[in-house]
């Protein structure tokens, strides 16, 4: 197991083992786990805990890495919590190539900035989109009808959201 100093918390949720690591050392922790046999990053995503009363959260955004050891078939979920505007965390795409698109998606939909990512651009939404749709404070059905005057006004709004 990786150095205990890197693990803040650990537990099991519905049978899935997980650990929490400090957001600034997520690259070190994942590099350590990779050398221990967790060679596959199944997915990487983010959870927005805005106004989540189910427990105390250390920060608003939780970055989730699901790792798998292809030989022993063990799975491990790594969590890191980030805050700030924009929230920043180190990229792991040099360790796990599939993370490249996952990180772009997380940037696109949550506005998480991944340091050292080679091409951190929007992937699912159009390049000129304003805002990050999967954040909890982004409304459903808030977008205007395309090709209408309102849409033009909304699309040219200053990028601050």
């Amino acid at each position: 197991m990786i150095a205990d100093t890197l693990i803040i918390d650990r537990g099991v949720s519905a049978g899935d083992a997980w650990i929490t690591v400090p957001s600034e050392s997520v690259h070190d922790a994942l590099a350590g786990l990779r050398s221990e046999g967790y060679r596959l990053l199944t997915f990487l995503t983010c959870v927005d805990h805005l106004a989540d009363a189910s427990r105390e959260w250390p920060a608003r955004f939780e970055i989730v890495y699901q790792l798998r050891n292809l030989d022993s078939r063990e799975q491990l979920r790594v969590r890191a919590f980030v805050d700030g505007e924009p929230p920043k965390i180190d990229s792991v795409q040099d360790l796990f190539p599939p993370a490249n698109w996952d990180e772009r998606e997380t940037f696109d939909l949550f506005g998480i900035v991944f340091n050292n990512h080679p091409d951190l651009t929007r992937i699912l939404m159009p390049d000129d989109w304003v805002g990050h749709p999967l954040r909890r404070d982004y409304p459903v059905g808030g977008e205007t009808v395309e090709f209408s005057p309102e849409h033009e006004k909304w699309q040219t709004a200053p990028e601050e959201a």
Partner: protein
Amino acid sequence: MSVAQGVTITKTGQAGAFGGEILTVNFGPHHPSTHGVLRLIVDLDGEQIRRIKPVIGYLHTGIEKQMEALRWQQGVVVTDRHDYLSPPINNLAYALAVEKLMGVEVPPRAQVLRVIMSELTRLSSHLVWMGTSGLELGAMSMLMYCFRERDTILDMNEEISGFRMHTSYIRPGGVFADATPRFLELLDKFIGSMPAHVDEYENLLTMNPIWRSRTIGIGRLSPEDAKVLGASGPMIRGSGIAWDLRKAMPYSGYENYEFEVATSNDCDCYGRYLVRMKEMRESVKILRQALDRLPDGPVNVDDRKMLPPPREELETSMEAVIHHFKLFTEGYSVPAGDAYVAVESGRGENGCYIVSDGTHKPRRVKFRSASFVNLQALERMALNHMVADMIAIIGTADAVLGDVDR
């Protein structure tokens, strides 16, 4: 800049290896051979590919955002629509994740029905792949043959769930309805006839010189690359690695069925084709075993807090009316926590990661789609191949764009 059939060309000014200039060519997003709306920006030296960059997002429908606004039982309908060629397998991943968080186990009959629907879906998904890939590579008649069999699968979908495509059949707590006698009859007939049909496809393609020259040695993906790039499904098995979630991490009782994991050491488009053909035969074997052992009993968990009471009870029991009312106005809540479940779809690892904050709506639902990850291997596979080979490579990667963009 010239435009023809959705293709735009720009000169880069760099010299190519054949005395010409490297051109940046845009394919799609509305190009007929890209399986939906995939856009590719390709640097071409003569006809050889020097760089390829997929641009996705043209089919993004915000499914994960919609899930957050729907109650747990309503979300099933949306899961149908991301990988639109395998709705019941998407349902299954979501249902298993919700059940895992709630600690619910479905009855044996429901488990077997889930396996039957999963395998039928795998077959129909492979048939669509076979038909469209054949069409792209010049085997025009494949589409007609494959869609003939796919139609019988859609008839069965209609018989068991009322819908031909977006079945919403598998849902948390069990399945929508029990199999009708007519469904079992159709299934029996289908299992009897399908192996001969697979033979028919193989007769048309496996030794076909045109098909072989279009696929053998094209789009090589070494086993190491397949592992590193996180490929799954026929992509990794076509590279000789026997990784199948049904065997590696069984769910829904797959450990009780006898079947082989189809692999091929060819590591090219032809290998991936062989894997899919073998998988179709194995699916038929699983279907036969499932139909033979289909146990009697309920198809849903007996939990009135999760699933509505039977119609007859509503007329006699006040309790049932209350449960019915609560379920359809408020829904059920799932304990706070998170769970990840992965199932094997026709394209690879189809996972569902759910986070609950203890309320009746999900906090976050993430679909880990196989196509999204497999498509990232495109650059590795297509480098230094001809433009025409790119069509074969995209075809055998079998990316469903609804699944890529969600």
